């Protein structure tokens, strides 16, 4: 009997393989049909722009003198100039501070809201709409509205003064020490919904079994949160942090509309400085070199992020793969 079964299995194996081969081919075809328009877009739209940028960053072109194709070759001089420009260095520091602060703020607020919202309750949809409203507000409108609210004698300071009973009058937008944190707060208000949506999706997709098992074993809510939910959410958390960080590094409309890099240079972040260099100073070549340096910086961040995400996924796969194997083993 067993010999016959083995023989039959041997007959089926090649047929299954052919089906598998054909399935894999179909998947491959599907992948290429999705990817080829993107590759074409890259080839015809993005690459020429990148090459043009590269051309400008290697040539010194002054807008007032002649055509850009007559520009002088300067090699890597502009890259050296940018990397030794203290104003660029400070702009990078401000951008990193801004992105880090606002990413952490958005994440904490977004996660807290998502945690409150992930179990269904009556009227949940209304709260959901309210929570995502800031993200639907145009950043420039956020900036102008905030400007009116944040005057020293404006409604925010007035409300806080009334609540705490002591005169509270910080100059949110004109004190160089707090101007950047103020824009950071606006960014957090504007983009918390983004983290909220991602974390809500993450929380909703956590399998119930591990939580129920922990509850049966008598674990406290805090322990369940810290030792079951957080580890399961780690890939989603990383994704939320990385996407938000990249977005925050590129924040321009609010900073520009509110303060144009001022007071002094307190809010001169990388996008603001690149804009000023390119479109106020018309140093197109230096602006191109700056953009390349920032692009390389961002690519490095993205590569690290992808690596971390893969590791997280592998860890989870290993844990659940092993657990699944262990469970089925113990069950047999």
């Amino acid at each position: 009997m067993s010999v016959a079964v083995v023989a039959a299995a041997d007959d089926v194996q090649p047929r299954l393989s052919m089906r598998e081969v054909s399935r894999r081919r179909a998947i491959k075809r599907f992948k290429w049909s999705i990817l080829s328009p993107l590759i074409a877009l890259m080839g015809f739209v993005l690459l020429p722009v990148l090459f043009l940028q590269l051309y400008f960053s290697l040539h010194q072109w002054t807008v007032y003198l002649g055509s850009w194709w007559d520009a002088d070759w300067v090699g890597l001089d502009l890259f050296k100039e940018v990397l030794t420009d203290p104003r660029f260095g400070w702009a990078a520091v401000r951008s990193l501070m801004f992105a880090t602060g606002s990413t952490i703020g958005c994440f904490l607020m977004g996660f807290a809201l998502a945690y409150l919202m992930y179990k269904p309750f009556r009227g949940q949809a209304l709260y959901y709409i309210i929570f995502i409203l800031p993200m639907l507000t145009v950043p420039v409108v956020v900036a102008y509205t905030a400007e009116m609210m944040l005057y020293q004698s404006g409604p925010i300071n007035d409300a806080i003064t009334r609540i705490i009973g002591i005169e509270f009058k910080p100059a949110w937008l004109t004190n160089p020490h707090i101007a950047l944190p103020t824009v950071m707060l606006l960014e957090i208000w504007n983009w918390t919904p983004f983290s909220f949506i991602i974390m809500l999706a993450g929380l909703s997709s956590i399998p119930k079994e591990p939580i129920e098992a922990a509850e049966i074993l008598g674990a406290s809510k805090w322990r369940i949160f810290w030792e079951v939910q957080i580890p399961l959410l780690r890939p989603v958390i990383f994704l939320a942090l990385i996407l938000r960080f990249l977005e925050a590094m590129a924040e321009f409309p609010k900073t520009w509309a509110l303060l144009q890099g001022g007071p002094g240079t307190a809010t001169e972040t990388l996008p603001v400085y690149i804009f000023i260099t390119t479109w106020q100073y018309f140093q197109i070549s230096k602006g191109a070199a700056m953009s390349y340096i920032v692009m390389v910086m961002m690519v490095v961040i993205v590569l690290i992020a992808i690596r971390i995400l893969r590791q997280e996924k592998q860890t989870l796969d290993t844990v659940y793969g092993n657990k699944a194997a262990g469970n089925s083993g113990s069950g047999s």
Partner: protein
Amino acid sequence: MTKSKISRRTFVEGGVGLTVANFLPGTTPLAFAASMEESTIAAAKTAGAADVTGMIWSPYLVPMQPVIADFKKATGIGIGGVQDISIFDAPQRAMAEALSRSPQFDFIHIDSNMIPSLASAGYLEPLDEYMKKANFKIEAVADYANFMTYKGQTYGIPTDGNVHIQYVRKDLIENSDNKKRFADKHGKELKFPETWEDEFRIQQALMDPAKDLYGSGSLRNRANGPTWWYMMFYSAGGFTFDDDMNATLNTPAGQYALEIYLQEKKVAHPESAGWGTPQMIPRIAQGHVVTCQYWDGTAKLNENPAKSKTTGNWLYGLVPGSDFSGKRIHRSISSPLAAILINKYSPRKAQAAYLALWLGSGKNSIPIVSDPVNTFNDAWAKEHMKSEAVQKAYSPAGIKAIEANFQVVAPPTYLTGFLEFQDTLGKNLSEAYVGQLPAKDVLKKTDEEWNAIVGRIGRTKLKADLASYKAVMPKRNVPV
């Protein structure tokens, strides 16, 4: 009485002779002299009907619309579509247009201080030929028409004078208690300030922060600060560059101007470091300011009771001057001075040019500059100064102040690279104002940065620009 001896034959011969002479080329019969507006229409008709497109901020365009409609009726030339872009953002957009040599806009309405940069980038159409054909002259007050020229050619037609005038609260300065207090403290009469030092004393004496009344309403933010600093610098006898295009800000005149500029922090609102026009204009009109230099259009707003709480409570006059150089010099400033410039790459540049001339005639622009609601276009033409409608909008004292300040008005750096020079100075002044940069380093740093800009744009090129810049500077130190 003597009887003249003219025979009938002589009389008839003379009549025939005059009639013939009337049609000889080169003789312009007085009885039939066409006005500037009529000749603009005649010249525009030769260009053919068209709807031109442009880049203009809507508050400037709205009061122009009836005047444009008249031109459309007469010539078939009107406005098709416009892109509504703020005058503060227009320079960047215009330079992008220049870089791409785009024919998208037939005209742009922009700060005339951009003329050197845009002309150097090859974007601007000279207007002299069109002006000649239309027998058109920019009939501006004093030498103000020079602001439209660069390297001997005319590139712009003004629509907005935008000169700074001095504002002083009449009710406060004429108050007898204030007068006594001021005289007791300073041993001087409290009166309209003549120098920067006078103004600072008045601001200190009359401000009362407890009542939300601050001494100064002048701007100190990064974008606008340089406009005020230039007035102080020029009035101290300073000039931005030597003949070899080396920056000369870090001089005794520059340091004096910086001191005056920064000391105002003591009498300004604590948030002044970040405030621009949207914040300051309401404060001026609502009575929270003792004195300031400001664009002349604010006088129109102050004198409009529907929009102001201080109507009738202002004195207008010449901006303060300085004796620092050993002689009294007053320097007002016009920045941004809005003007219409024509795109060289436009297929409808002739039509756009004639439309600009039409809008820039003294007579046609009276309703534009006297609009009491859309107050962005300010008086600049000789004809405006005599017009009843304009006088009503600004008050006679306002118009007198405008006329006086036009006689001593100067531009900021009227050079290719204007925005770059302006922002660098603005950044450093702003850093000093908020305490990020020691005052002693501001001008040294700005000189270094300006010299680097000169190197980038080209010393030889900028040396050639310098003549145009100097030609725009006022010839008088004190108005007559």
